[in-house]
């Protein structure tokens, strides 16, 4: 280890924990593991999981990270925290003492966020390490099984990975069971209660088609295929389940990147400022902190944006400008009270929608760009007209809003057992080459023809993948 002993770290950790408690952060028990840069690369390639099932894409991720690191294009993160209970964090042994102190404080804030933000409620952090391990063992057992082997396992995993994010996004909303969906369908079909039923003409009601599969458009693509393709073998079903479960575990992290990094940055700054660091450590901390929150020209630094918004929310509830006062939530007595409630109740999209003000858009120098004829052109800048548009665009490019919403509409389209998917088009077209290749994966898993209804350049289009390959057909409006 660098120029300090483990005992010093433990000493500093104790002081940090006192501050963490004083500020009211609410954490899982924390475990730190000191690792070198090779181990860090390994952890990064597998999203931090100490055990994970094997797949070549993680090898590719590793090679990419290593190449970037070796060529000095990108450094390694100073830490990595896993949403588990107890929370597991890796610290790079080459970090200086000042950096380790900053990192430890940062880790506790992530830990608090994992424990308290509502999106993480479904992630079952007590079991995640065991679950990952069990996934790994199962996948390995299929690979080693002489009747299955790596090639077939890989085929299924390749396809499942391609579809893993086509699933329900808001996991806090409970998924209705089939029976409940049926009930709801029936109730919806009933005519509305009418106190004057005797004088009115009898209302017309249709009997709903309860044989339709799925009853309501289904977002969990992998699970739907798992449950409705009778020709899948047991191990194939299991692989789809594994990939689906893992995606579900990671979705909250995708959904709260800006909030979570901003929250950790907000707190590491506050904690370190309250620690009375010796001057040399303090100076280095300032330099490091500024590196972390440096805006990256032409891109988005979630640490910077998140941190700025958190600081601004805090300020608004401590020293509001006169014109801001009327917009403040009533009954909130302090900035601290406000930010703790926001950290529990928002995700990136709602966080930005509620708290990214015109003033912040200007301060952060946000701008919007589009591709025109192959060039990247600035289309809106942070001014009185442009800021709303920029905010809307930003909200659409965070979290799961970057993943097109595609639902299973019909498993028996045209009475040919064709799987019909419908893309809920919101003005953004699909990337067609990617759509074609991904549809091929759907076809592979479904085992019969598949079709995807979407819009291309304002026209309704049906993309199909059949035994004769990929075709597109324009649909009447």
């Amino acid at each position, binding site marked *: *280890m660098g120029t300090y002993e*483990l005992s010093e*770290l*433990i000493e500093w950790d104790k002081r940090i*924990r006192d501050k963490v*408690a004083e500020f*009211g952060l609410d*954490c899982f*028990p924390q*475990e730190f593991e*000191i*690792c070198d840069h*090779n*181990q860090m690369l*390994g952890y990064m*390639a597998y999203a931090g999981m100490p055990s994970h099932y094997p797949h*070549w894409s993680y*090898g*590719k991720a*590793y*090679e990419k990270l290593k190449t970037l690191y070796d060529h000095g294009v990108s450094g390694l993160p100073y830490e990595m925290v896993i949403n588990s209970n107890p929370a597991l964090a890796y610290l790079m042994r080459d970090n200086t003492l000042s950096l380790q102190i900053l990192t430890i404080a940062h880790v*506790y804030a992530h830990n608090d966020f994992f424990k308290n933000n509502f999106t993480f409620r479904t992630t079952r952090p007590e079991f995640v390490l065991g679950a990952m391990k069990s996934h790994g063992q199962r996948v390995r057992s299929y690979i080693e099984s002489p009747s299955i082997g790596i090639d077939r396992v*890989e085929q299924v995993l390749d396809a499942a990975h391609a579809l893993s994010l*086509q699933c329900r996004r808001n996991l806090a909303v409970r998924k209705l069971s089939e029976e409940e969906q049926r009930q709801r369908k029936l109730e919806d079909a009933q005519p509305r209660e009418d106190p004057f039923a005797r004088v009115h003409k009898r209302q017309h009601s249709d009997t709903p088609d309860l044989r339709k599969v799925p009853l309501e458009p289904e977002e969990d693509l992998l699970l739907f295929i798992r449950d409705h393709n009778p020709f899948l073998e047991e191990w194939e079903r299991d692989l789809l389940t594994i990939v689906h479960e893992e995606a579900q575990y990671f979705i909250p992290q*995708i959904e709260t990147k800006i909030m979570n990094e901003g929250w950790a940055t907000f707190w590491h700054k506050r904690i370190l400022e309250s620690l009375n660091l010796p001057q040399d450590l303090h100076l280095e901390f300032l330099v490091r902190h500024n590196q972390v929150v440096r805006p*990256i*020209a*032409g*891109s*988005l*630094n979630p640490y910077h*944006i998140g941190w700025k918004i958190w600081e601004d929310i805090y300020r608004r509830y401590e020293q509001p400008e006169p014109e801001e006062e009327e917009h403040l939530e009533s009954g909130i007595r302090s900035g601290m009270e406000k930010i703790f409630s926001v950290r529990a109740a928002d995700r990136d999209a709602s966080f930005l929608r509620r708290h990214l003000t015109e003033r912040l858009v200007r301060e*952060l*120098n*946000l*701008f919007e*760009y*589009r591709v025109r004829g*192959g*060039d*990247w*052109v*600035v*289309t*809106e*800048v942070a001014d009185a007209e442009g800021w709303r548009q920029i905010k809307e*665009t930003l909200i659409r*490019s965070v979290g*799961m809003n*970057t*993943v*097109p919403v595609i639902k299973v509409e019909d498993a028996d389209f045209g009475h040919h057992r064709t799987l019909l998917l419908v*893309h809920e088009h919101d003005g*953004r*077209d*699909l*990337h*067609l080459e*990617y759509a074609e290749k*991904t549809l091929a994966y759907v076809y592979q898993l479904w085992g019969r023809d598949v079709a995807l209804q979407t819009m291309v350049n304002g026209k309704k289009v049906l993309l199909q993948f059949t035994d004769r390959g990929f075709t597109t057909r324009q649909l009447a409006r």
Partner: protein
Amino acid sequence: MVVPESIFRPFSPSDAERSDRAAGDRLRHRQKVRQCIRDNIADIVAEEAIIGKDGNRIIKVPIRGIKEYRFIYGENVPGVGQGDGEMEPGQVLRHGEGEAPGQPDRAGDRPGVDYYETDVTLDELVEIMFEDLELPDLERRKLRELPAQRVLRHKGYRRAGLRVRLDKRRTVKSKVRRRLASQRSAALVSGERFPFHENDLTYRHMVPDLKEESNAVVFCMMDTSGSMDTMKKYLARSFFFLLYQFVRAKYRNVELVFIAHHTEAREVSEEEFFHKGESGGTFISSAYQKALEIIQERYHPSLWNIYAFHCSDGDNFDADNATALKLAEELCQVANLFGYGEIKPLGSRYYESSMLQLFRRIAAENFHTVLIERKEDVWPSFKAFLARDRVRE
């Protein structure tokens, strides 16, 4: 609120060494990259950049096909970035195709330019090329060998020897055995030191061995008459490159002979061979004559595997044809493989005479003619050519 005590696990160097957990997945990814290279081998071979012969040289090979596809948004989707505060609407951030200006990592990413290049060494590439050739019995074929090269072979154990050849496992075993024996005879106080004895030391014994070494020579013959332009020479060069790599992969010791000819033939250096143009007419026979002379002098067929290849545009003087045919047949007698490649870039073939007709009369099995019209032909022709390789008894 009380924050529970945290646990610190110190760095463990032994864990760090053992924990190359990505190794298996990297290997698998690497295999996919290789598969990709193999699928595109014809394109890659046709690229001028790889033609050269330094085995350690690193080549950039463009790879497609190991993208991880998902449903993602296409190009009509706007993005947001942070600027310096001096941005103007209409300002162009960057021109042309490319990735968004440093998009942050996020799931459901835009398609990066996943058309990336990978580094392979020339040797690796050659290995992949020959996997592609699907000639599984290549190695087992009998080569013309001559005994040479002393290598050391392991043969038994000795009580005395060089320290580097100490067999630690056997030495320790012998010590353990001795200790058990002495425990049984004399009551040994436990914990007492029981050192190694001279008799415990066991050394691996090595004996010199004879290894068969095989030699090969590649004769590159090319028409450098006025009608051979740069394009034709480039195609010829691609072919020679492949031939050289193939022979090098197969034999320990490979020599190259370059013969340039117009109406007369000369042995030249590689540099001259590919870069010096000459002018004048063409006597193909002169090159074959020269090759036969050189074989006679330096590369006796009983000691050398001879590969000869001749590239020309086929524009030979009629008067020379009979001699050329005769000498070509002679060359077939001594060579493992003799080939004639006629290079006629598309469009030129109808105006010039061809040797292909004439050479059809050669009955030897190890003779092969190819017609190369464009660079995509090089690899398939080369494969066809090698199929004729025969090993003489």
